[in-house]
């Protein structure tokens, strides 16, 4: 056995190519005979009908090859999300899933909707021609809130986003699965939340607002698509979900999978933004129109905000009831989301929000409703956390509210009442198998100095007020059993006894490929450099659903492990046959010498077995094979069997300037129940980076619109993300005291978990500083000043 690499701080497998600029992203692709595509979008209106399209002047631009309008591409509708492939078909019907998107549109439902596409011999010609296309619009009234959309939909002959969705209600929890259209449970005697309110000594309740946040991955959406000489449609894309997207493209263009090749290029950040199709339909449609020419279609940064999906904004009402000693009794909530112009992810994130309420505290009964109404905004979709950041903002503030009313320590209450081993997780019927949350709370509380600072900040004067806050969270490792969690891997033993792993596992920069390689090395007992993980091309990669729901280590890792175990087993079986020994009596050393335990002279070099397996000959004297013929391969088609939710506890310390409303996050300590960190720097990296996105959610990030529904801040200057000098030096504590009995090597997930703690703890720290509960995220300086003006400092 080679030295174990799992848990070691090794350099990432892709670090060298990225630090030297050699990694190739889709926009870096250059191919002979390549054309350039430009998608023409509606920038003037958020809601309009296209009355007339005139390409005359555009076609005169030198270098223009073709211009495609709405009638020149497939009329088939589609849905960007891969969800329909990940649930049984009957599910989609019950939830009311529809395919309401078209490649090019005659009705604009949000600013940025695509109208037509230009193909030209160079990028500049494509852009010039795009500017010269004349579009005549008939503006329609805009609906920018769920209430406005609902009111319009309720009118007789009201304007509907789609005839398939009466009342402009895109989706709600269906009665068929959720009696009373609510997710939750009744108490042990069958009593509902409605019955239990009267049992409560204290009820806390409020209305909250959560923002429309953008993923802001650094790589823009770029594609090269190529309908080749073998009549195959090739696409190079940085999608998160290569195989399901390949399937969606095949369905949309009515091609068999054998004629669609999807190559996943280096992914320049995902965060959910590339979960499903983004610009692939447009890129492929252009390429199909010019067979034999690759077409590169690159989105500009300013397009990203209006043409790719966002987090679900909306309103959340929540009500909690407690006994006077703090015992939680029941909880009700209702999340009404703004859907944007199209169905896309449907009720995904609001439902998951309810699910994560389900997974957190020991209520006697719970009922949470969720729905979403169409609005004239870019559609909502997947964004890191998938509903969890929104409900954490609300739930953790209300829990603190109760603690403050009853004089209970916020940390102690959470330690006592969070769910644990044996309790139901985010999904009914699935119970926790491990729990390291109290260790997260204790270690992080100690690190930040919770008790001392809580006391110190109790009484303050002056313009700068400090506060400290805590929040906990539960998440998931993959989406089993709600969604398909399936990964295949082929491990091929090369003729020199090194290993090639073939799998379509995505690494969005998370370190997933490094972790996979580490797991393979430890399973095989081979050194790291003997393992090569080959990913990215549907022509040789087997099935994997892609990167979503914090699944890679937890759901794809076992496929790597199983396929490597198979290789190891076959290798030892051959050694046993050749040495005339039993497999269980054999051992392999770091030089790959397999020998009999206790008798090291009886040995065989594994390299010999690997070479003879491929370069196999007949001994001319004996007439028998030299060694054993047949290349060794291991294969796994792994389906997850659990979702081992990780917990986390985060503490934040803030300073609020009560004259300017400015909030500075001074310290942030996030303890994460990782089970086992396969590659610790990657886990830390997820949590450190997630903190920046969580702090953005709670402090600065949101879409701003003008009165016509056009985005005012589709750029990095006006859409404020926290920069290097705004960010605290986040301290991450990897809690490995509760290895998961189901997760590979004890591991649970970390990808999305990072946002929730910072969001809840900063909101609570702001309350601790000024004594005002801020119910609208992001909590900007303006909102704080307004609240102080209206209510005065409450402490």
């Amino acid at each position, binding site marked *: 056995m080679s030295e174990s690499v799992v848990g070691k701080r090794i350099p990432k497998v892709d670090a060298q190519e990225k630090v030297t600029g050699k990694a190739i992203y889709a926009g870096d692709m250059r191919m002979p005979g390549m054309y350039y595509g430009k998608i023409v979008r509606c920038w003037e209106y958020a809601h309009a009908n296209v009355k007339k399209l005139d390409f005359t002047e555009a076609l005169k631009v030198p270098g223009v090859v073709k211009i495609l309008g709405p009638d020149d591409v497939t009329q088939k509708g589609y849905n960007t999300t891969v969800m329909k492939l990940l649930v049984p078909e009957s599910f989609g019907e019950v939830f009311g899933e529809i395919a309401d998107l078209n490649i090019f549109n005659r009705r604009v439902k949000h600013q940025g909707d695509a109208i037509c596409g230009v193909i030209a011999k160079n*990028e500049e010609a494509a852009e010039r021609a795009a500017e010269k296309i004349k579009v005549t619009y008939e503006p329609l009234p805009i609906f920018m809130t769920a209430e406005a959309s609902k009111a319009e939909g309720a009118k007789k002959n009201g304007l509907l986003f789609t005839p398939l969705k009466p009342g402009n209600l895109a989706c709600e929890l269906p009665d068929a699965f959720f009696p009373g259209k609510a997710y939750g449970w009744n108490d042990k005697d069958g009593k509902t939340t409605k019955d239990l309110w009267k049992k409560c000594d204290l009820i806390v309740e409020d209305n909250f607002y959560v923002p429309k946040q953008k993923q*802001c991955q*650094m*790589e823009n959406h770029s594609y090269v698509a190529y309908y080749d000489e073998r009549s195959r449609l090739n696409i190079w894309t940085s999608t998160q979900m290569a195989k399901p997207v390949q399937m969606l493209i095949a369905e949309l263009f009515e091609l068999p999978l054998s004629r669609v090749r999807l190559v996943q290029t280096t992914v*320049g950040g995902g965060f959910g933004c590339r979960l499903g199709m983004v610009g692939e339909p447009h890129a492929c449609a252009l390429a199909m129109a010019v067979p034999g020419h690759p077409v590169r279609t690159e989105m500009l*940064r300013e397009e990203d905000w209006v043409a790719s999906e966002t987090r679900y904004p909306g309103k959340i009402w929540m009500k909690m009831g407690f006994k006077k000693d703090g015992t939680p009794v029941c909880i009700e909530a209702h999340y009404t989301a703004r859907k944007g112009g199209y169905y896309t992810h449907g009720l995904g994130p609001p439902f998951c929000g309810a699910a994560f309420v389900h997974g957190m505290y020991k209520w006697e009964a719970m009922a949470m409703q969720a729905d979403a109404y169409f609005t004239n905004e870019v559609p909502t979709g997947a964004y890191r956390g998938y509903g969890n950041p929104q409900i954490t903002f609300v739930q953790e503030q209300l829990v603190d509210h109760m603690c403050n009313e009853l004089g209970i320590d916020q940390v102690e209450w959470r330690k006592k009442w969070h769910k644990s081993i044996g309790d139901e997780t985010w999904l009914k019927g699935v119970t926790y198998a491990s729990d390291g949350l109290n260790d997260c709370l204790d270690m992080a509380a100690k690190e930040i100095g919770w008790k001392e600072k809580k006391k110190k900040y109790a009484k303050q004067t002056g313009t700068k007020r400090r506060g400290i806050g805590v929040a906990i969270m539960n998440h998931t490792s993959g989406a089993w059993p709600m969604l398909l969690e399936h990964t295949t891997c082929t491990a091929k033993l090369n003729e020199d006894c090194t290993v090639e792993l073939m799998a379509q596992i995505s690494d969005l920069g998370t370190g997933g490929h490094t972790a996979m390689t580490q797991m393979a090395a430890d399973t095989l007992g081979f050194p790291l450099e003997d393992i090569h993980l080959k990913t990215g091309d549907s022509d040789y990669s087997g099935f994997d659903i892609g990167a979503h729901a914090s699944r890679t280590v937890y759901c794809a890792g076992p496929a790597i492990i199983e396929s490597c175990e198979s290789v190891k087993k076959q290798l030892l079986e051959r050694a046993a046959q050749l040495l005339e020994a039993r497999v269980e009596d054999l051992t392999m050393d770091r030089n790959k010498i397999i020998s009999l335990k206790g008798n090291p002279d009886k040995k065989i070099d594994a390299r010999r077995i690997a070479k003879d397996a491929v370069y196999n000959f007949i001994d001319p004297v004996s007439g028998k094979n030299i060694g054993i013929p047949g290349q060794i391969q291991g294969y796994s088609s792994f389906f997850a069997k659990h979702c081992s939710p990780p917990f986390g506890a985060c503490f934040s310390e803030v300073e609020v300037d009560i004259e300017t409303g400015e909030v500075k996050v001074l310290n942030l300590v996030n303890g994460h129940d990782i089970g086992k960190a396969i590659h610790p720097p990657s886990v830390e990296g997820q949590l*450190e*980076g997630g903190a920046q996105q969580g702090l953005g959610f709670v402090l600065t990030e949101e879409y701003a619109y003008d009165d016509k529904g056009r985005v005012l801040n589709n750029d990095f200057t006006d859409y404020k993300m926290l920069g*290097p000098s705004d960010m605290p030096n986040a301290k991450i504590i990897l809690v490995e005291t509760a290895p998961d009995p189901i997760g590979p090597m004890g591991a649970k997930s970390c990808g999305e978990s990072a946002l929730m703690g910072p969001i809840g703890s900063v909101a609570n720290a702001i309350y601790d500083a000024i004594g005002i509960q801020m119910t609208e995220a992001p909590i900007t300086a303006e909102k704080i000043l307004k609240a102080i003006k209206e209510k005065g400092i409450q402490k």
Partner: protein
Amino acid sequence: MKKRAITLYINGEGYDLNVPVHHTLLQVIRDQLNLTDVKYGCGRGECGTCTVLVDDERISCTDTDATTKYCVSKPGKRKAILACMTLAATMDGKHITTVAGLNKDGELHPVQQAFVEEGAIQCGFCTPGMVLKGVAILEKNPKPTETEIRNELEGNICRCTGYVKVVKAVERASELMASKRKR
């Protein structure tokens, strides 16, 4: 389309070019020369992914000092600029370093080395610009404080790391460069 004949020196290599006067340095580097290690992130000077180093004097990777193989410059000579905000026509005769020009003969520049060691790389898209900004910071100020590093990094956006390991990598690179100088 008006064009201008210019000579650009990129990573020590001279290119005689005829560039449209309205083309940015980023367009010329990426689309005319196909050097794709310089990235397009926003095209309007907001994100820093297209950062390159520019110097009036030739930087030769063959005249490096005896102890190091990587390309060096006199302190404070190289400046980090944004290729998307610079017209190529104005760069005639200038010497430009991109991230691909930092390492030499397979040996990484200390800033690159530190980014690898500290795990400061995630999706890698901001990395070329971030590394070059790190070089510019340390060539101006070999021993910056954490606050100085954070302030200087403003303008280079990363959405993956929260800047924690990036800042650590610049600090580590400062140590690596100091120890190389001593040797």
